[in-house]
């Protein structure tokens, strides 16, 4: 109890709160800009925190982390370009809502449900942290492979009108992910002797090119008025805060999505991007109007925004209870903890319980803080849409290019953005869906590496995927999910 009070008091120290605010604002900006990710934000700020006391430094890091994941959804909604990979699924319904003139409400949903997800994630950490972490360890290569397959079963759902075209697009994405060094033998694949290709095609430039540049080009092509200062749109922008009834209606979907987000967050190596995509597809099963998914459904948007923030609590659980990074950001946080003399892991809960309570309180506070400033920030950003079209297009193009360059300072990545942009434009013309491509880019490498790893461990026996219980359950779930999606498509 004394430990709890001590940790809690450290977290609500006024100086810590100020650093939390600074972190939240930095996170908002970095997350909204396409290309700059939460990982980058936390990495840039970590060395600065060495000179701060633990509660101040962690307040800043936690503020950045939480708000960057949330604000990635803002650019997904407004300009159809995910600000961070965690918000890919938010583009499906978020941008559709903007086209309907409901950008304000979409942003409001993003704020509210990111916060709901974030808080539920922490609640899970407090309530069932240790059993959850134990569950994460039962994931071996076989389970990772079947999890990837389960994620890939979403492909049909994100395929748009034609399943066949969606599948082809997905496998095209998979083939792009093959470029680089083979994950098991290290042999070069499709590198054409170029050093830049050894590391493979970076995912973020492809994503930004397909969504950001591709979207701009297709708008120029059709001269669509969806992003302009349309009188109808600006009147509706005013309402950002969702009504109580709207929130209540979205609650079941949000609860299921947080659960998915937490579980996927707990599993090391599976992050918020996968959580958002899987939650978007699976929550449809309990949605009131599943047929609206992808066409501007509030439920679909709530699902993806809840899941990606719920993921943070899951990742933090793995990190604190096992001392293992749940994702790239927690890998950096482990470093920060060690600098403050605290080794994450089971003994941390015994020897540094006050530190644990402090981190948990800060996580909860960070969600409350971005709930407060998020509305305000989103409202300002919607003004961006009332600029003349040429301004919007020019801004998206330059931010996409420089943002992608910023990740790796690589001129090669600029070329990738450009080519992906061309591809994104052509695919829009030919009515080929983009969802399956990014899905395969994220999950394809995970499926391949883990299938081969599992086969090395099992001595080449494929039965390993059916005899291990979690793996079997995931395979059955994938089959069910695939079948129902196909049947649903048939009906409509």
């Amino acid at each position, binding site marked *: 109890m004394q430990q709890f009070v001590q940790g809690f008091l450290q977290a609500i120290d006024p100086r810590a709160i100020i650093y939390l605010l600074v972190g939240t604002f930095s996170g908002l900006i970095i997350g909204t800009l396409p290309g*700059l990710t939460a990982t*980058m934000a936390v990495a*840039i700020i970590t060395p600065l925190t060495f000179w701060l006391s633990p509660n101040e430094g962690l307040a800043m890091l936690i503020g950045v982390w939480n708000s960057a994941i949330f604000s990635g959804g803002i650019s997904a909604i407004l300009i159809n370009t995910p600000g961070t990979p965690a918000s890919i699924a938010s583009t499906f319904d978020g941008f559709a809502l903007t086209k309907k003139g409901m950008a304000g409400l979409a942003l409001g949903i993003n704020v509210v449900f990111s916060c709901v997800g974030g808080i539920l994630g922490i609640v899970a950490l407090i309530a069932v942290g240790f059993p959850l972490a134990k569950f994460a360890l039962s994931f071996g290569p076989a389970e990772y492979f079947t999890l990837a397959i389960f994620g890939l079963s979403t492909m049909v759902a994100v395929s748009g009108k*034609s399943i*066949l*075209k969606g*599948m*082809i697009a997905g*496998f*095209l994405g*998979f*083939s792009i992910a*093959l470029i680089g060094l*083979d994950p*098991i*033998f290290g*042999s070069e*694949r*499709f590198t054409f002797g170029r050093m830049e290709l050894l590391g493979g095609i970076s995912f973020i430039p492809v994503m930004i090119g397909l969504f950001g*540049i591709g979207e*701009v*080009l297709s708008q*120029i*092509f*059709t*001269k669509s008025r969806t992003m302009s200062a349309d009188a109808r749109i600006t009147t509706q922008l005013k309402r950002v805060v969702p009504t109580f009834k709207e929130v209540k209606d979205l609650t079941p979907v949000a609860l299921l999505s947080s659960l998915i987000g937490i579980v996927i967050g707990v599993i090391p190596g599976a992050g918020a991007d996968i959580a958002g995509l899987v939650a978007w597809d699976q929550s449809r099963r309990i949605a009131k109007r599943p047929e609206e998914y992808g066409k501007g459904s509030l439920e679909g948007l709530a699902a993806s925004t809840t899941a990606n923030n719920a993921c943070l609590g899951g990742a933090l659980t793995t990190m604190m209870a096992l001392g293992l990074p749940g994702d790239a950001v927690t890998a950096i946080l482990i470093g920060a903890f060690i600098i403050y003399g605290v080794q994450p892991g089971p003994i941390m809960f015994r020897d540094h319980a006050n530190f644990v309570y402090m981190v948990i309180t800060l996580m909860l506070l960070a969600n409350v803080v971005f709930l407060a400033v998020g509305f305000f920030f989103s409202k300002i950003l919607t003004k961006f849409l009332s600029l*003349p*079209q*040429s*301004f919007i*297009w*020019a*801004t998206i*193009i*330059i*931010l996409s*290019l*420089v943002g992608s*360059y*910023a990740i790796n*300072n690589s*001129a090669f990545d*600029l*070329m990738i*953005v*450009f080519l992906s*942009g*061309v591809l994104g434009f052509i695919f829009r*013309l*030919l*009515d*080929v869906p983009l969802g399956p491509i990014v899905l395969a880019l994220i999950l394809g490498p995970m499926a*391949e590496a883990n*299938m*081969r790893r599992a*086969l*090395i461990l099992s001595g*080449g*026996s*494929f039965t390993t995927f059916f005899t291990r219980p979690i793996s079997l359950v995931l395979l059955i779930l994938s089959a069910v999910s695939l079948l129902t999606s196909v049947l649903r498509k048939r009906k409509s």
Partner: protein
Amino acid sequence: MGDLIFSLVSIAYSIYLLVESSKLPAGIATIPGPGFFPRLIASVILVLACLLLTFSLRRFFKKTTTPFPKGRWAQVSLVLITILLYVLLWGRCNFLLNTFLMLFSIHIVTGSKWYMGLIGSAVLSIGVFLLFGNVFHVLFF
């Protein structure tokens, strides 16, 4: 029409992929090597694309195919060329100047008034330079 083009291009691509991946070792049956997945993926694309081709050919001969979308090809091509030039010239001349010129020509091509384009591009390029160059320490030239 779109389906027809997409399926043909996909078929060509999958054949290329098959040829390229045949140079990689496939591994033994139970432990797949580096070439196993590329071959698998290429074959799946080939089969699916052939299916799509048959469907779209049937529609093509029944004349029920949807016409190719009409749009502003000239503007899109000009914007694309501008971006391509910008990417190719990265590292040469001056970042601010290059960025300004690219943004300005996008403004003009998409129908902005010249003075609006001038102001917009100047503000945006300086803003990007300051934010990314000074705050995020991106390596510009």
